[in-house]
């Protein structure tokens, strides 16, 4: 899966979690003080990505070490999450 397709999937999952009530940018933080997602919404996004990964024939692991580390983790931005999603799809 290329990065553009992954971004499209990630943005769609976030949009669903936020019920279309916010504009989603590629730089948007997904964790921490400036995030529009509370922890419950973030979990919903992750569960949605699990389902979407399943549809694309791979397993999306959001409990990895990379996901947990705020500084270099995949939740630091929409792009970072999309990159991780694309990377895991390639590693299947």
């Amino acid at each position, binding site marked *: 899966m290329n990065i553009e397709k992954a971004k499209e999937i990630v943005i769609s999952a976030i949009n669903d979690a936020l019920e279309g009530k916010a504009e989603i940018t590629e730089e948007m933080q997904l964790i921490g003080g400036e995030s529009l997602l509370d*922890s*419950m919404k973030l*979990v919903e996004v*992750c*569960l949605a990505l*699990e389902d979407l990964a399943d549809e694309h024939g791979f*397993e999306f692991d*959001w*409990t990895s070490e990379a996901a947990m580390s705020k500084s270099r983790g995949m939740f630091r931005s929409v792009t970072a999450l999309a990159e991780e999603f694309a990377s895991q799809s390639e590693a299947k």
Partner: protein
Amino acid sequence: MIIVTGASRGLGQAIAERLIEKGEDVIGLVRSVSGMILDAIECDISDYSSVKNASREVKRMKKPVKAFINAAGVASMNMAVTTDEATVQKLIQTNLVGTIYCCQLFAPIMLRQKHGSFINFSTIAVPLALKGESVYAASKAGVESFSRTFAREMADFNVRVNCIAPGPIRTDLLRGITDAQIEKITSQQVIPKQFQKSDVCDLVELLLDEKAASLSGQVLNVGGV
């Protein structure tokens, strides 16, 4: 399905057997599946990768997980000054870190369901501050603290987290402990008697019952303190 760690012996085995008797579909997480009668997955709860692999295996089963019971544990009855480094590490790694690994790695299954229950195990040695159990009690105090906060994190998803804290129950963990020593401990409980594995199994059943839907973030001290 209900998952029980430490299901090969002691309390874990008793709980697994009780739940099977009650018609539940039980999967044990055990260090070795050799000789296991009930369905089991090999898993060392103190090893993150091992727990992660077990959680993947359970996820692939695509069955609802009603509860996860963290019954696996190790004990060492020694004063802190006579407890060697390896034992300290083992107690903390298995009792506390192992419980955390299991909760964090199996929680996503329950978050998706928006339903479920975790039962973790502490000890009455925590509130009674029993002499000779400092490191063991510290590991279990950590479990209590983790469980109280984890319960709040899970509450929005309708997942409950509680602890059972037994007093001295006759299992392998109490090897070498005399009846007199046990009586000295039980005499400090509100109900000053030694309870049995079956009493703990009763509490597990109680916590799994929908009638306990209002209970989360609680520690049930067996015998009372």
